[in-house]
């Protein structure tokens, strides 16, 4: 059996990511553990967006909302002294999924440009809600009292342990996502993207499937939000800022839509690029903006499309 180039790229990627903490330890650069953990957290968010954007054809410009809800779930529990991670993270997922259900019910009935604007508007609404929550820091945000506790199972205060938890979750989501899009459920979503009337004609109700995908993606992104709150140990409405939604979307496109692995690559490259550029100049966005335009205009297949052409 021939091993595809895609499989090699993936295995190499997983090994490289697993090697980051020991190598950073050898070089005495703990900063890189932090950076790559951040990349992987955003990778989870981006791959959840790929499920609805790439496979489902739903251009959601509001994915940062679930990042924020997940983060606030952890932060608010910690604020009241509840630091049980199992509880915090479950509620983060459930709350984000519930928000996605409400937003999805209203927005999936529309399509095209309406869908883009509505998801953006709802996220902005949640952003303003975050700003007005004076108890939880208002627009300044508030520090997270303690990282989530897992009854001695794993200690997130240990940078490497936290890193491997995130890596394990990322790999888990990749496998789950892969199986999901290959399953009947994934086929229905994809068929709805390419030809919705036809999907309806052969007896499926695309609305329910699309809504289910939207809720799943919201829940997964909520978990990424819970991780992000632990990563930054700080909570701010900025997690839900609309530019964050744009960034996550760009990760998906940069890496390659409809590949699930592409968005992971996109997250690593975009955050890496931001890190390099922001070290060069305070005004790094003046380089990033045109870069984004160029990628959209000329490299639509994304990075993953370039490295695994056999796909």
């Amino acid at each position, binding site marked *: 059996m021939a091993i595809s180039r895609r499989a090699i790229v993936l295995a190499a990627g997983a090994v490289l990511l697993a090697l980051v903490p020991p190598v950073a330890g050898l070089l005495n650069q703990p900063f890189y553990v932090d950076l790559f953990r951040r990349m992987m957290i955003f990778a989870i968010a981006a791959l959840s967006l790929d499920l609805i*954007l790439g496979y489902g054809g739903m*251009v959601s*410009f509001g994915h940062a909302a679930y990042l924020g809800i997940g983060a606030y779930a952890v932060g608010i529990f910690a604020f009241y002294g509840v630091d049980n991670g199992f509880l915090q993270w479950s509620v983060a997922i459930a709350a984000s999924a519930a928000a996605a259900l409400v937003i999805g019910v*209203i*927005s999936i*009935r*529309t399509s*095209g*440009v*309406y869908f*883009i*604007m*509505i998801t*953006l*508007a*709802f996220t*902005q*609404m949640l952003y*303003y*809600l975050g*700003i*007005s*929550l*004076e108890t939880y820091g208002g627009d300044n945000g508030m520090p997270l009292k303690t990282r989530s506790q897992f009854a001695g199972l794993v200690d997130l205060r240990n940078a490497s342990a936290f890193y491997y938890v995130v890596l394990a979750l990322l790999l888990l989501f990749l496998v789950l996502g892969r199986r999901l899009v290959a399953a009947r459920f994934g086929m229905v979503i994809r068929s709805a993207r390419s030809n919705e009337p036809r999907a309806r004609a052969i007896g499926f109700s695309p609305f329910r499937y699309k809504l289910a995908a939207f809720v799943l993606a919201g829940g997964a992104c909520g978990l990424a939000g819970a991780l992000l709150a632990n990563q930054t140990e700080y909570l701010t409405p900025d997690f839900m800022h*609309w*530019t964050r939604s*744009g960034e996550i*979307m*760009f990760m998906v*496109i940069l890496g390659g839509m409809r590949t699930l692995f592409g968005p992971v690559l996109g997250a690593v490259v975009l955050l890496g690029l931001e890190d390099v550029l922001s070290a060069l100049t305070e*005004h*790094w*966005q*003046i380089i*990033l*903006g*045109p*870069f*984004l*335009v160029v990628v*959209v*205009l000329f490299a*639509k297949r994304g990075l993953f499309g370039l490295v695994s052409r056999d796909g």
Partner: protein
Amino acid sequence: MLLVLEQGLNGLQYGVMLFLMAAGLTLVFGIMNLVNLAHGSLYMVGAYLATAFARWTGSFVLGALLALPATLLVGVVVEVIALRTLYERDHLDQVLATFGLILFFNELVAIVWGRAAIYTSLPLSLSGSFVLLPGLRYPTYRALVILVGVAAAVFLYVLVTSTRLGMLIRAGASNRTMVAALGVNIRRLYTLVFGLGAALAGLAGLMAGPIYAVQPGMGEQILIQVFVVIIIGGIGSIRGAVAGAMVVGMVDTLGRAFLRPTLSTIVSPAAADKAGPALASMLIYLMMAAVLFFRPQGLFPTRGR
């Protein structure tokens, strides 16, 4: 009662600015089928150019008069360099590319004028207030904004319904291939329409300068509210833009002014103090959700789209 009237006028003033933004956005979408997130950047550019020109010439009015054609020019340049290639692309590409433009413009403005907010001072003749009704004084400048906005709306109406250019715009919106086949230079028409939209956004921006803070990112704050306007009004329709802008302007302004006092008569004042501002800032989005739930195509959907 007078307070309600005053806040109503403020709502009208905000609605007028939202309309100027929404009109450009909806024209560009209706004719070129382009979702332009960078429309807010043109608003910001208009505000900054007006401020800069006003300082340079020492006159607010002269600054405004110079900023208008300058913003139009910026719009045309952006269209020719970057956006022209996007008309045939799908909405996802358009959204991302114009998102890139926003990052570029916000940073460019921060480099040239700094990140701190700039405030424009009005000339004496405009900074006062006048007696509107016995017992009610209203700021002269806000009244001027309302007048200019209404004039711009009338101008736009006449332009679209009874000029040759307006005829081409309407024809381009319903069938652009046919218009091109009839020998109209459709590319130039597109550039013209985009420039018109840019000038309207610039007008809104330059008028916003003395009322709100001029700072990087100011365009996106209003842009997302303009999206709400368009969703409520129905995209591609000027009539919808007028209706949506008025509704959103009024609901937002009146909500911020009266929601907290009204709530405090129902629940405890402490609870009203907490919930009032939060609810007021979410009000237009909740209204949008309600409209969408009952009429997914907005209040004034365009025919055949």
